[in-house]
């Protein structure tokens, strides 16, 4: 490259300093979870970017599956909250090979906390702009059948206690094992099993009164050849 043309230089304002040849560090290519974890512990910004780029979609999907169709919760906000929690807790990760599972756990806990906060907000009667209140919309707005099922299910889930809603979602939507659910929510296995039983019962009761869910359940029964 030809030398730059200093057409508008305003004097040697940076001063005449002794300079030496630059030692240029070009950081390229590969990384692994261990390197990312080490970088995060050292406060390296590249590691934060690498962590985000590797796990953002996974974390967003966990959050989306947990909070579903709730106009009062935004995956985008929770995404940042989850990654901040990951950074804050990185020193507690004792094995870098477990980073993937640990990130998933933090994501789920972030979603659970958000659901619990929503319950508190309803209790304290926060003012909510009416343009965000999509609950109880006209059926004709629901769209294709699968989307209807999605919306109705999360509307039902939103009426359940936060813990029951979350164990049910982690078990059947996120497809966690009972042990993983227990670890994520920091409950005993017995507690998880008990909560899932109650959650299923409550969900069934609520779904029985929803025409869309009744139809879905009936269709499922016919497909299985059973009587529902």
């Amino acid at each position, binding site marked *: 490259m030809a030398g730059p043309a200093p057409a508008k230089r305003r004097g040697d304002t940076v001063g005449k300093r002794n300079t030496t040849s630059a030692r240029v560090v070009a950081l390229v290519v590969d990384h692994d979870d261990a390197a990312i974890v080490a970088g995060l512990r050292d406060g390296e*910004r590249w590691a934060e970017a690498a962590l985000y780029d590797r796990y953002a979609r996974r974390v*967003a999907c966990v959050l989306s599956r947990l909070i579903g169709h709730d106009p009062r919760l935004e995956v985008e906000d929770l995404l940042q909250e989850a990654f901040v929690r990951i950074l804050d807790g990185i020193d507690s990760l004792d094995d870098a090979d477990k980073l993937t599972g640990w990130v998933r756990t933090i994501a789920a806990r972030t979603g659970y906390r958000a659901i619990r906060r929503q319950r508190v907000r309803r209790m304290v009667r926060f003012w909510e702009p009416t343009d965000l209140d999509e609950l109880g919309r006209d059926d004709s707005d629901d769209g294709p059948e699968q989307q209807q099922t999605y919306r109705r299910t999360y509307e039902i889930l939103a009426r359940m206690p936060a813990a029951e809603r979350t164990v049910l979602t982690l078990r059947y939507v996120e497809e966690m094992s009972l042990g993983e659910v227990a670890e994520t929510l920091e409950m005993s296995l017995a507690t998880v099993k008990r909560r899932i039983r109650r959650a299923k019962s409550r969900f069934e009761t609520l779904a029985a009164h929803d025409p869309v869910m009744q139809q879905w359940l009936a269709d499922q029964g016919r497909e299985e050849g059973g009587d529902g």
Partner: protein
Amino acid sequence: MADPTRLSDLGRVLREEADARVQPEMIQRARRDFLERGREPRRNARGPLLAVAALAVAVVLVVIAWPRSPEPGLLAFEVGSPPRTGVVGEWLAAPVDGAVPMTFSEGTQLELEPQSRLRVREVRSDGAQVVLEKGTLRADVVPTDQGQPSWLFEAGPFSVAVKGTSFSTSWDPATDTFAIAMKEGRVVVQGPVLETPRELVGGDRLRVSVADRHVQLSRGTPPEAEAASPPATEARVESPSGEDADEEPADAEPAASATATAKTSWRERARAGDYRAAMEQLDDGRFGALVTGSSQADLFFLADAARFGGRPDRAKSALLSARKRFGSSRAAFLLGKVAADQLRSPAEASQWFQIYVREAPSGALAEQAWGRLLELSRGGDPERVRALAQEYLSRFPNGGHAPLARQLVGP
């Protein structure tokens, strides 16, 4: 009891729909917010990484920008002495015993101080975006004819937008401290602790400690000392309650003397700390035009001047405009403050703080907003107050309002 097979099938449906709602654009927006967020100091931070270690293994993936050469029409730059061609995206680290000069094709000169590290993230035809990862950078930016700043410097979570100026800036990730010393020209600085973007001119020095939520601002003759050092005029800005670390300029000078020329603008009066005079100067009818036509940064500046100048009605107008035109959540927070502190309207204040925590649950002002809500709730329904206090403690167990929250939760 609900059939687990059906629940699994239902789970599959929900999973598909939920995943389909995760859009790439949203992930990119959140990425920017995450990487540019105000950073709280990590308890077990191990300190700054040594610059330029001769590592045998390259372990970093830079996804933001692979090293690439500038396209035709874009600025080119050279690095070091003797100079070599600079590459966009490439990390540059200055050794322990020397600085690294950089020269851009339009004449802008940078100098990376010893043990500092930066990269040029992006170049344009009239400017560039530079990320100062650690240390100190001196800059002599060639002015442009464009209305908007053409250069952007990022130092940690802070950004410095530049049109043409000479300054030095530094960022210390170990202490989360940002500093900038202006020689001449004009820049706009944004970042954590600073409630509103700060415009600085020649002679100004700004130092922000994110960890301490502490801002030092001094205005004076062009500095000679290092930007990272404490400025010669130690002007502390602290709020005892921990709110608004940037509540008032530290160097608020006495009211303009009677000999001040009549041509002194309202903006200059506000900069000098004479907010009342600045507001009086706008009694000629210009205030309305400023509210409808100013940029977001100027609206915040106008709102601050009005707040400090005893004109909460005008502050509210400016902030409502920022809200309406730019969707600013920060404006919602400030509207809450105006309502609570100056308009004595707790119900309105509570609504604005609620809006803020809903829109920006992880925002830089979230702890303050929740704390203000707690204060405003006192004397109300005990169940509500207790729930609020518990919510505050779950989010901010060590926050400034934690003692109050524990008191309200009770035994």
